[in-house]
């Protein structure tokens, strides 16, 4: 009876030890996966923020720091999706840019034919939505070449993971 009780004690102890070990192993596994996910998100977030700053100063779209050139934006738009593929060699995959001039007019997407009577550009629009996006917006100026005027706009730059 006494030895049976002793044996039960050892069995119970072993059971608890195994439970603790399994819990630790599962926790460490879950922790490693979570850490990697967090690190990946942090890297993508930092990349998105850098691309916001880079886009806002890139001579592909601007005439000076944080001042976009409306004719350049239209040019990139007019050059089409093939050109976007080439731009991805610079900005990376999943990158896109959107500019909206803040005026009282309704939103008009800029095309090759309606320049300069338009106020909205979306460049290199990502094909698949539904993916997690890291998007930043910032106020900028857009220089209207034809009217020789600076308008205020919102620049949106982002990457899709």
């Amino acid at each position: 009876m006494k030895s049976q009780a002793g044996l039960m004690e050892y069995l119970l102890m072993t059971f608890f030890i195994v439970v603790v070990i399994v819990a630790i192993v599962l926790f460490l596994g879950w922790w490693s996966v979570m850490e990697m996910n967090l690190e990946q998100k942090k890297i993508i977030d930092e990349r998105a923020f850098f691309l916001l700053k880079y886009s806002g100063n890139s001579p592909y779209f601007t005439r000076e720091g944080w001042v976009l050139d409306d004719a350049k934006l239209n040019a990139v738009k007019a050059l089409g999706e093939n050109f976007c593929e080439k731009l991805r060699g610079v900005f990376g995959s999943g990158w896109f840019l959107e500019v909206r001039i803040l005026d009282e007019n309704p939103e008009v997407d800029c095309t090759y034919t309606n320049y300069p009577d338009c106020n909205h550009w979306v460049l290199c629009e990502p094909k698949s939505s539904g993916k997690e996006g890291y998007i930043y917006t910032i106020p900028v100026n857009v220089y209207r070449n034809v009217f020789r005027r600076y308008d205020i706009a919102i620049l949106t730059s982002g990457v899709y993971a």
Partner: protein
Amino acid sequence: MKAQTTMILLVFLIMIFTGLVIVLLSLSQTVVREEYSDLYVNNLLLSILKTNTGYTDRCETVSDLIGCAFLTPSYTCGGSSLECRTLAEQTLEEYMNMVNENMVYCFNITSGPGWSSLDEQGLYSISFGDSSIWKKGINRRVARTVIQSVHEGLEYNIEVTLAVAFRK
């Protein structure tokens, strides 16, 4: 007694795990946010100042308009029936609402270093927007720049400070 001690130890272990998870998760806040907020407000200030208003005379850009409101507040710009001071207030409100309706803002316009008094119509400091943003405890972002404005052939440095807080 022993069983009770064992249970307590196990509960202790679970608490350590949980505590570790909470502490490590809380450290994962990205640093990018601070830099982004500062950049946003700085860009907001500089972009608004550079924007053309559509008015003429001394009020072509928002920067010119603010200079006019500071140095000659009762002057009427070309293309408007309002005085500079009122026009500046209205224009800034219009642009700030277009950028983000959920912002509380305040523009503080003060004399730059080395400024000397004009006649009685000159002002030392004016502001546009909600001055309560300067109260203690409000989570605000501030950007500052200096603009130049010409009055009667003399160039004046005027300091423009923008404080912004976001409504939740």
